C-alpha cells in the first residue's frame, strides 16, 4: 500500500508561529517522498486540534502521521491516542520537538526555520520505516509460591489466600520462623509467639493456602504469570512435584551473623555468654537463667556484635537489647542490667517509649567501644573504653551478645535458582532501593522480610502486605497481562549465539536456546531499553521502534 504521510505543524500560539516561518517549512517538507499533505494548525493538542487531526487522517487516507510541535514528553501520548481514534496504528507516528528544541532556543528566525525543516525531515524520513507494533496480551496464572514460612511468608500468604491458591514452602518441619522464638516483639512489646500462632491458625483454616514443609525448591523456569516450579521433599527419595504459579515471593528470612565473630567475645568458651536468639528461646521455654540454674544478679548486654565485620547496622538490635532488659527485670527483680552500645539506633516514637521504659526500670546505658570479655573469679569481666580514652571494667554474672542479622543460609542457592542477584551484605537485591523495594529485577519475583536486608517485624509485615498489594493489583485471576510494545527482537538467521545480549540485559529477558544455538527475547520481561541491540555484534538483535535503520534516517537528514 502506498505510504501517505500527513505532516502537521502546530503554531502553539506565538510560541512556534512567532519564531519559525512555518509556511516555508511546509513548502520544504511537501517535496519529500511519501508526504501527502503538510498543514499548520493553531493548537493541535486542544480538543479541536485533535478532532482536526482525526478528520485529516480520514480525509486524506493517511497511513502515517508526523507532528511538529512541543516535546514528545508532553504530547506524544496525546497524538498516539489520536492515531488510534482515527484507525491508525499509534506507532506509525513520529513527533518532532520544534518548540523546546528549536523555537524557544533559537532567536534568529532564519536559523530556527532551517532547524525546524531539519527536525521535521528527520522525523518524516524516520516514520517511513516505522512498523505497526502491537501490544501483546498473555494469559497468566494468578497463583503464588511463597518460599519461606516465617513471619514474612505467612503474612504474605494470609493477605493473598482469599483470592488465589498460595503455596507456602519451607525446608524446616514447621512454619513460624524466628518470630516463634520471641515472647515479645520490640519496640511495641506485643506478644510475638501468640500472634504467630494466630497467623498459623489462619493459614490452617484457609483452603487456598497449601503448606509444604520439609520441602525444597529444586527448579524454577518460566516468567511472570507463567512460572513452572519443581519442588522436592527433604527426603531425596521422594518424587518431585511440579507447580504452576504466576508470582514468587522470596521470604527466606535471616540467619544471625557468623559464629566466628562470637568467639572473639568468648562465646563458647566462657560460661553464661549467650546470643540474643538463645536468650529469647530460653525465655520462651521458661528456662531463663544461668547455666547450672542460678539467678543472675547482673547482666551485660553487648550491642553491635559482628557489626564491624559485616559493615552495616542490623537495625533492630538496640530495641531487642531493651526488650531483653525488660524480660530480665521482670523475671529477676532487682537485677542490674547494663547495655554496652555504640550508637542508639531507635527511630520512631515507639522505640523511644521502650528506651525510656528501660531507663526507668533501672537499665544503665554506657556508650562503649572495644568491648572485651574475660573470666574473672566466677564472674564475667567486661572491659571497655568509654569516651575513647578511659578503659573501665564491669563484672557481671551473664552476658547477652546482640548478634547482627545476616542473610539466610539458602540465599545463594535460591539466588541461583531464581536468577535474582545478591548484593550488599549478601542479601537479595531490590529492583530499586527506594521506589521498588519489594520487587526484584526479575518481574514476578518479589522480596519480603529479612531476605532483602535486616529489619524488624513491623517492617517485614509492611513488605509482605506491599507484595500482596502488587500481586493483587498486577496478577488478577482471569486478567491478561499487556506487554511493552517497543521490545527487542532477535533475528534467528543472524544470531550466532554469542550471548553478548544476554550478558548485558539487566532484566533477565534474554535466554539462550541450546538446541537452536540462538538467543531469544522474552517480550513479557523486556523493558525496551535497547542495550542488547547496541551490544549485538551481528545485528541480529534489534530494538523495535528504535531500529538502526530508523535511527539512520534521522542521522542522514541531520548531517545534510
Amino acid at each position, binding site marked *: 500500500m502506498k505510504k501517505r504521510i500527513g505532516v502537521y505543524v502546530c503554531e*502553539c*500560539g*506565538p*510560541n512556534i508561529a512567532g519564531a519559525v516561518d512555518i509556511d516555508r517549512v511546509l513548502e520544504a517538507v511537501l517535496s519529500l517522498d511519501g508526504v501527502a499533505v503538510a498543514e499548520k494548525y493553531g*493548537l493541535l493538542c*486542544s480538543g479541536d486540534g485533535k478532532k482536526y487531526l482525526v478528520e485529516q487522517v480520514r480525509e486524506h487516507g493517511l497511513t502515517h502521521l508526523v507532528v511538529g510541535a*512541543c516535546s514528545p*514528553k508532553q504530547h506524544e*501520548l496525546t497524538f498516539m491516542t489520536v492515531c488510534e481514534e482515527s484507525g491508525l496504528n499509534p506507532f506509525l507516528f513520529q513527533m518532532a520537538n520544534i518548540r523546546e528544541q528549536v523555537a524557544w532556543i533559537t532567536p534568529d528566525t532564519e536559523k530556527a526555520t532551517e532547524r525546524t525543516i531539519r527536525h521535521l525531515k528527520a522525523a518524516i524520513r524516520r516514520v517511513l520505516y516505522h512498523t505497526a507494533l502491537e501490544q501483546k496480551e498473555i494469559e497468566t496464572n494468578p497463583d503464588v509460591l511463597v518460599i519461606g514460612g516465617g513471619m514474612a511468608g505467612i503474612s504474605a500468604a494470609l493477605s*493473598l489466600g*482469599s483470592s488465589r491458591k498460595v503455596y507456602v514452602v519451607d525446608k524446616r518441619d514447621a512454619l513460624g520462623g524466628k518470630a516463634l522464638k520471641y515472647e515479645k516483639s520490640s*519496640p*511495641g*512489646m*506485643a506478644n510475638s509467639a501468640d*500472634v504467630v500462632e494466630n497467623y498459623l491458625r489462619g493459614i490452617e483454616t484457609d483452603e487456598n493456602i497449601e503448606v509444604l514443609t520439609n520441602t525444597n525448591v529444586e527448579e524454577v523456569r518460566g516468567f511472570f504469570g507463567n512460572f513452572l516450579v519443581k519442588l522436592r521433599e527433604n527426603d531425596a527419595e521422594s518424587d518431585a512435584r511440579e507447580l504452576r504459579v504466576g508470582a514468587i515471593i522470596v521470604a527466606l528470612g535471616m540467619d544471625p551473623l557468623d559464629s566466628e565473630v562470637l568467639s572473639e567475645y568468648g562465646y563458647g568458651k566462657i560460661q553464661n555468654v549467650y546470643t540474643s536468639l538463645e536468650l529469647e528461646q530460653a525465655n520462651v521455654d521458661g528456662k531463663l537463667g544461668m547455666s547450672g540454674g542460678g539467678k543472675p544478679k547482673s547482666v551485660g548486654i553487648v550491642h553491635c556484635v559482628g557489626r564491624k565485620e559485616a*559493615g*552495616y*547496622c*542490623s*537495625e533492630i538490635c538496640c530495641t531487642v537489647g531493651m526488650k531483653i532488659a525488660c524480660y530480665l527485670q521482670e523475671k529477676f527483680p532487682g537485677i542490674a542490667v547494663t547495655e554496652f552500645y555504640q*550508637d542508639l*539506633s*531507635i*527511630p*520512631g*516514637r*515507639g*522505640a*523511644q517509649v521502650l528506651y525510656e521504659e528501660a531507663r526507668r526500670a533501672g537499665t544503665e546505658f554506657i*556508650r562503649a567501644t572495644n568491648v572485651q570479655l574475660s573470666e574473672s573469679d566466677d564472674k564475667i569481666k567486661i572491659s571497655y573504653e568509654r*569516651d575513647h580514652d578511659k578503659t573501665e571494667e564491669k563484672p557481671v554474672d551473664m552476658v547477652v551478645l546482640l548478634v547482627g542479622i545476616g542473610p539466610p543460609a539458602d540465599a545463594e542457592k535460591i539466588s541461583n535458582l531464581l536468577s535474582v542477584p545478591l*548484593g*550488599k*551484605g549478601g*542479601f537479595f537485591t531490590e529492583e530499586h*532501593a*527506594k*521506589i*521498588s*523495594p*519489594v520487587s526484584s529485577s526479575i518481574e514476578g519475583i518479589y522480596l519480603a522480610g529479612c531476605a532483602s*536486608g*535486616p529489619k524488624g*517485624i*513491623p*517492617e517485614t*509485615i*509492611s*513488605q*509482605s*502486605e*506491599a*507484595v*500482596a*498489594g*502488587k500481586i*493483587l*493489583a498486577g496478577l*488478577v485471576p482471569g486478567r491478561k497481562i499487556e506487554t511493552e510494545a517497543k521490545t527487542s527482537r532477535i533475528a534467528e538467521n543472524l544470531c550466532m549465539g554469542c550471548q553478548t545480549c544476554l550478558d548485558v540485559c539487566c532484566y533477565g529477558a534474554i535466554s539462550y536456546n541450546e538446541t537452536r544455538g540462538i538467543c531469544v527475547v522474552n517480550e513479557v520481561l523486556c523493558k525496551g531499553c535497547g542495550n542488547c541491540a547496541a551490544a549485538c555484534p551481528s545485528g541480529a538483535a534489534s530494538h523495535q521502534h528504535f531500529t538502526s535503520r530508523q535511527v539512520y534516517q534521522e542521522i542522514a537528514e541531520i548531517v545534510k
Partner: protein
Amino acid sequence: MSQNAEVADQILVIGAGMAGIEASLTLAAAGKNVYLVEREPLFGGQAIKCEEVFANMECATCMAAPMQQEVLQNERIELLTLSDIKEVQGVAGDFTAKITKRARYVDSEACIGCNACFDPCPVSLPNTFEEDLGERKAIYISCPGALPNVPAIDTENCVRFAGEECNLCQEACMFEAIDFDQKDEEIEVRVSAIIVATGYDLQDVSQIAGVEYTESGNVYTAREMERLYASNGPTEGKIVLRSGKEPTSAAIVHCVGREDIGYCSAVCCMYSFKFVHYLTDKLPEIKLYEFVSDLCIPGKSYQAFYEKLKDKAQITRFQNLAISQQDDTATISFQTPSGEDNTLEVDMVILAPAIVPAKGASELAEVLGIRYGEAGFYGTESGIQSGVDSGRQGVYLAGCAQGPKDIARSITQASAAVGRLLASTD
C-alpha cells in the same frame, strides 16, 4: 471517570507525595479509580525538593518524574491539586467525602505551560517553596519543572484580587488560559476506602530552645540547604549564604530539639551526611563539621554511605548544644559526652530538625475520624502490624503521616495499604 462506576472501585488518596503517588499507581493497576487530592498547586511532596537522595545520590526528580508522568497520564487517576478534604461521612465500603478544590484561576486544559504570564506580573514576593530564598510572582509555578506545569494565582498577594485594576498576566497569555472568574469548586465523591498519605513537616526551628534562627542569619534548615543545592532552585545550585558570600566552613547539627520532641526522626543522620556530599561537591575546600548525638544509619546500605563520607567532616559527639548567630558567622556552644565545654565558630550552620506531622494533621484527623498518637502521627506503632491501620475501618495510612521514615519505607507502606485495601474487598 464515569460517574456510574461502582463505589467499590473508587478510592480516595489524600496527599500526592511519594506515598500517595505509589498508592494511586498500584490502585490504578488494580483497576480502581482514584481521586488523588493534594493541597499544594504542585505534587511530588517533599522528595522533589531534593536534588539528590541517599544512599545512591540519585537525582530525585529523575526518580519521581516517571511516576508523576504516569499519574498525570493514567485515566484512572484524577489528580486534584489545590484541594482540601472538608468532610468525610459514611462507613468502610461507602464513604462520602466533600472536597474543596480551590480556584487556580488558570484553565489547565488551555494552558500550555509557556510561562509568558510571569514577567508582566507587578508583584514579587518570597517563594515559600524555595524556603523564601528566592522570589516568585503572584501568578506562579513553585519551581522549574513543577508538575502539573500550570501556574496558579496567589489571590492573597495579587493586586487585582485586592481591588486594583490589573490584567497584565491575562494580556500576556496567548491561549486565553487565565480566568479571573474561576471559583472554588465543592466536589463530592463516593469512595469505598481512603488512604491517608499526608506526609510530614519539619519542626519549626525558631521554636527550639537554645537555637538562634532568623531569616537573615547564617543558620539554615535542612530544607533551605536542599533548595540551595538544587539545580532548579533559587541559586541554580550555587552554595551561597544570604550575605552573598560562599561559606568556608559549615557545621551540620543533628538531633537539635530531640530531647524535647521525644523521638528520633529516622532520616536525619543520612541526609546530614548527604549534605557533606553536597557541600564538598560545590565547595571542595570547605571545612565541615558534623555534630552527632547517636548515629542512626540502619540497614544494609546506609553505613557504607556514612563510611564514604565521614572522613570529609570532623565528627563531634555532643550532649548539650546551643547555637547563636553573629553578623558573619554562627557559633555552636556544646558539651562533649565527657562533660567538656567547647565552642566552634563557623560561616554556616545547617540544622536537622525533627520530622513532625504535616501542618493541619490534627484537624484532618478530626475530619477523618482517626486517632493520632502523642507525637501527632496517625495510627499506632504498637502491636505487630505494618502501621497501615488508622483505627477506623476503611481508612488506611501510608508514609510519614504514620511516623518518620525514609522514601523506601513510605513507598512500601503505600503498597501495603493498597494490599490491605484490596484484600479486604476480595
